C-alpha cells in the first residue's frame, strides 16, 4: 500500500524571547498509508493542533520534512472563511474555493452538500441569521465534500448534535473506505477515535509517546488521564460524557474505613448519589462496571428504577463477599435516563483488595492482572 503522508523528524520551535525557546513538537515521525485514518490524541497543549497547522502549511516547521502525496485539505476550525453577510449558497462557493475546490466541482456537488447540511430552506438567507448548529453543519458539509487525497480534521465533532456527529463520522468512514482518502483526525472523543481510526498516535509535550492499534493506545491514554483525575472529587470532574440531564455526585464507602482498602471476601457497601439536574421524570438506570487496574472488565452492578421527586437521589449498593484477587480495581459509572445516557464518569471509584489469608497464588499476583477469587476447597480422595 502506498503512503499518503510521511512526516520525518519534524520539530517546531518557538522563540520565547531572551534566548529562550520552546519546542511545540519534537522529532515527530509518522506515516499515513493511503485510505487509512490516523487519529491523534493527547492532552491540551500536547502539540496536536500545531502538527495539523504545519501539515496544512499554515505555519512552517523549524526542522524536518513532510511529504504529501496528492492534494491536501484541512478543516481546522469550522466556519473560518465564512462571510456572515453572504447567503448560504454564496458561502458554499466562497468556502469551497478557499478550501481549494474548483468552482465546477462545487457546482457538481452542490446538491450533495446542501442535503448533507440539511439547510435547503435557508440557502438564500445570510449565514449570520443561521443558528449555530446550521452554521456548523454547512461548514462541515463543504469540507466533507472536498476532493482531497489527504484530509486533516481537528476536533470538529465537538459541535453539532449527536445525530449530526454520527453522520460526520459515517462520512469520514466512507471517505476513507470507499474513496480511498486518507484522513488525519484529532479528537478528544475516544469513542469516535476508536470507531474511525486505523491507527492512533498519542502526543504528549510535543512528542509521540505511543503509537499503534486504536484500542490499545486509547486504553493507555485513558489510564494515564485517570491517574491525573484520581485526586479530583467526583462532582468536580470535567471528563464526563453524556447529555448532562443528570450528574453523578459522589461514590463513598459506607463502612468505617480510613481508606479504600478491602480484604478479599469482605463486604463492600457503596453509597452513590446523583443529581437530577433538570427534574426529569421517568426511569433511570445505573451501571457500575468493575475493572481491574489493567483495564480488563470483570463484572457489573446494575440498578433500574423510577426517578423520585427528589433533586438528589442516594442509593446504597452492597456486595457480599468481595471475592477478588489482591490488586487495584476501579469502577466506571454510567447513568441513563429513559434509555439515553445522561452522565458517565470513567474510573469514578478506586479501591484496593488485599489478601491477608494468602489465598492467592504468587504467580497470579506477579501478573498484576487480578481477577475473581472463586471460593473453593480441596480434599484428598482415597482410592
Amino acid at each position, binding site marked *: 500500500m502506498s503512503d499518503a503522508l510521511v512526516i520525518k523528524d519534524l520539530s517546531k520551535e518557538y522563540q520565547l524571547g531572551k534566548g529562550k525557546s520552546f519546542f511545540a513538537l519534537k522529532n515527530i515521525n509518522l506515516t499515513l498509508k493511503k485510505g487509512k485514518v490516523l487519529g491523534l490524541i493527547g492532552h491540551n497543549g500536547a502539540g496536536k493542533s500545531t502538527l495539523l497547522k504545519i501539515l496544512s502549511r499554515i505555519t512552517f516547521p523549524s526542522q524536518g520534512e513532510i511529504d504529501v502525496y496528492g492534494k491536501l485539505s484541512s478543516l481546522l*476550525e469550522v466556519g473560518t472563511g465564512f462571510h456572515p453577510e453572504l447567503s448560504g449558497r454564496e458561502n458554499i462557493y466562497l468556502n469551497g474555493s478557499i478550501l481549494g475546490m474548483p468552482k465546477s466541482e462545487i457546482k457538481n456537488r452542490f446538491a450533495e452538500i446542501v442535503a448533507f447540511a440539511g439547510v435547503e430552506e435557508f440557502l438564500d438567507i445570510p449565514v449570520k441569521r443561521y443558528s449555530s448548529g446550521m452554521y456548523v453543519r454547512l461548514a462541515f458539509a463543504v469540507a466533507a465534500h472536498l476532493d482531497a487525497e489527504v484530509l486533516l480534521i481537528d476536533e470538529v465533532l465537538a459541535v453539532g448534535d449527536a445525530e449530526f456527529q454520527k453522520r460526520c463520522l459515517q462520512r469520514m468512514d466512507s471517505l476513507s473506505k470507499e474513496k480511498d482518502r486518507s484522513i488525519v483526525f484529532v479528537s478528544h472523543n475516544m469513542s469516535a477515535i476508536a470507531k474511525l481510526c486505523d491507527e492512533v498516535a498519542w502526543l504528549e509535550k510535543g512528542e509521540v509517546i505511543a503509537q499503534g492499534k486504536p484500542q490499545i493506545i486509547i486504553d493507555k491514554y485513558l489510564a494515564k488521564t485517570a491517574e491525573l483525575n484520581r485526586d479530583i472529587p467526583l462532582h468536580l470532574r470535567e471528563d464526563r460524557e453524556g447529555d448532562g440531564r443528570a450528574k453523578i455526585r459522589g461514590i463513598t464507602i459506607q463502612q468505617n474505613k480510613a481508606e479504600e482498602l478491602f480484604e478479599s471476601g469482605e463486604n463492600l457497601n457503596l453509597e452513590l448519589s446523583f443529581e437530577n439536574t433538570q427534574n426529569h421524570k421517568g426511569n433511570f438506570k445505573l451501571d457500575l462496571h468493575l475493572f481491574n487496574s489493567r483495564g480488563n472488565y470483570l463484572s457489573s452492578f446494575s440498578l433500574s428504577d423510577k426517578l423520585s421527586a427528589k433533586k438528589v437521589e442516594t442509593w446504597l449498593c452492597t456486595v457480599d463477599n468481595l471475592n477478588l484477587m489482591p490488586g487495584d480495581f476501579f469502577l466506571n459509572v454510567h447513568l441513563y435516563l429513559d434509555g439515553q445516557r445522561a452522565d458517565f464518569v470513567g474510573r469514578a471509584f478506586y479501591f484496593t483488595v488485599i489478601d491477608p489469608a494468602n489465598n492467592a497464588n504468587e504467580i497470579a499476583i506477579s501478573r498484576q492482572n487480578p481477577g475473581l477469587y472463586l471460593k473453593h476447597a480441596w480434599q484428598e480422595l482415597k482410592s
Partner: protein
Amino acid sequence: MLFFLFRNLLQVDTQGVAFLSFTFSGLLLWNYFSFVLSQSSASLISAQSMLQKIYFPRIILPLSKGLLGLVELAISLVLFLFIAFAEGQVRALGLLSFIPLLLGTLAAAWGLGLWLSALSIRFRDLQQALPFLLQMLFFISPIAYSPALVQERLPESLQSLYYLNPISGILELFRAALFNLDYRPQAWYSLIIALLLFISGWWYFHRVERKIADLI
C-alpha cells in the same frame, strides 16, 4: 475645504489649467494610491483568524486590494471625464497615458503595501501611524498644486530627490500628457522608484511569509 484652501487662500499655480480639472486629475490617482496602500497594509492583520486556520498564498490578501480600489476609481474617472471635458482642456489622446500611469501608481501602492503589511505583523503601531504618513504625503505631493511650486524653492541638486516620491513624477507625467504641458525628464525616476518598491516589497513579503501565522 482643501479646495478653498488651495484655490482661494493660497492661490496656487496650476500651470494655466482650470483648477478643478487640474486638482481632480491629481486626486484621481492619489485616491486610488492611498486606498490601495492603506487597505493592503492592513490586510494581513484584519484577516488574522483566517491566516491561522486556512492555507492559501498569503500575498493574495494585499494584492487583492488593488482590484477593490478599481471600483471607486471607475466612479471617480467618470466624474473626472465629465468635469475635464466640460472645462475643455483635456487632450483625448492624452487619456491613453492613464493606463500605464495607473499601473505605475498600483506598483507603488502595492510595493509600499507589501512592505507595510509584512512589517505590521511585528510592528502593529504602523497601522496607527499610516494615516499621518498618508496625510503628509498628500501635502508634499503635487496634487492640488503644480510641482513648480516646490521645485522653484529647492536648490538644483535636490530637485531630482523630489521624484523619489513616486506620486510626484507620475502626476507630472499624467498631467503633461493630459493637458499638453511640459515636464521634467526626472519625472521618469518616479516610475522606476515605483517598480523598485514593488519588487522589493514582493521580495520582503516572501521572506517573512512563512512566519506570518506564528507572529501575527
